[in-house]
């Protein structure tokens, strides 16, 4: 917060003293954008992480989306930010997936590709925490892992519709704007996603 406070001061210093109303407007806009980003960043990270199954890539994608929204679309009305942000995020996710796909295809043709060229795995990251988890936590973690796997296996549009509607809590119109499709398509994708998840995670049903 201290960093943000100093940022606001720096921004205000750029505006001449005779234009105090502009300074107030800029500060209000920055505060609103900061609040918006703070409100979506964790969910955005989880959405990217589920799609990419990679923490560092997910963080990069969220940062890119924040940067782009802030630098290009901050002047848009605040109610447009959420669909725009998630559209940017999904585009970035797709970019990373394409890059991976190309890299994997190229690497598959390399005859000298050995195990030592595989991505180095951080042993600390991979280490299993030996502390016993409480039964409720364990059950919750297992359920989350199963849910995450099932969501990741959905077709892209179904995954988007499910996460934006169910997790992010966007309404049909906002989801349609974020996915660049019609509200009817959103409903269809969401319904199919629910059917597929129910088929895989039957035990979630009550």
């Amino acid at each position, binding site marked *: 917060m201290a*960093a*943000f406070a100093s*940022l606001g001061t*720096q*921004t205000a210093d*750029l505006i001449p003293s005779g234009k105090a109303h502009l300074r107030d407007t800029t500060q209000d806009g*920055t505060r609103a*954008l*900061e609040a918006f*980003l*703070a409100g979506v*960043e*964790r*969910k955005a*990270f*989880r959405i990217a992480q589920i799609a990419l199954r990679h*923490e560092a890539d997910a*963080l990069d994608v*969220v*940062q890119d989306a*924040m*940067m782009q*929204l*802030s*630098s290009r679309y*901050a002047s848009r009305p605040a109610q447009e930010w959420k669909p725009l942000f998630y559209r940017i995020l999904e585009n970035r996710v797709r970019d990373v997936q394409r890059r991976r796909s190309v890299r994997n295809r190229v690497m598959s043709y390399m005859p000298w590709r050995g195990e030592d060229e595989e991505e180095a795995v951080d042993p600390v990251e991979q280490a299993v925490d030996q502390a016993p988890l409480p039964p409720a936590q364990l059950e*919750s973690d297992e*359920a*989350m892992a199963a*849910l*995450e796997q099932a969501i990741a296996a959905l077709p892209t549009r179904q995954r988007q519709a499910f*996460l934006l509607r*169910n*997790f992010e*809590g966007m*309404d*049909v119109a906002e989801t349609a704007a974020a996915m660049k499709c019609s509200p009817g398509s959103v*409903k269809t994708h*969401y*319904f199919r996603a*629910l059917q597929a*998840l*129910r088929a895989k995670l039957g035990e*979630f*049903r*009550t």
Partner: protein
Amino acid sequence: MIGDDTPEGDSEFERRTRALLLQSADQLPGAVRSRLTQARHAALAARSQRGPSITRRWMPLGAAVAAALALLIVYVPHGRSPLENPVPGAGLEDIELLSDTDAVPLNGDQDVDYDFYEWAAAEAAGAAGPAVGS
């Protein structure tokens, strides 16, 4: 259930999955939360340090070029076809001039009666003063 915009219309399955996902977002590791905060600050800093957009930066130059082009189009004469009549409505006027038998001939000296004009000048001079030959 399809098309419901309110969480109240959700099934138990939807509520359960949402609760799990929200819980996972709330329990992110500290390192991830810190990276997200840094990313947010970086995005806000980039916004505050951003100059005018490319469109706004190049707009005056674009306007000047457009104005110069407009002036060129208006004031610079364009290549015309030689058959094109440069003066609108001049065709009829030309025909009248050519068909007028009382007008001064336009086709050079060949039809000019110089003897008549010399005689007329001499007559005029004679009327004004004594004749040259007398």
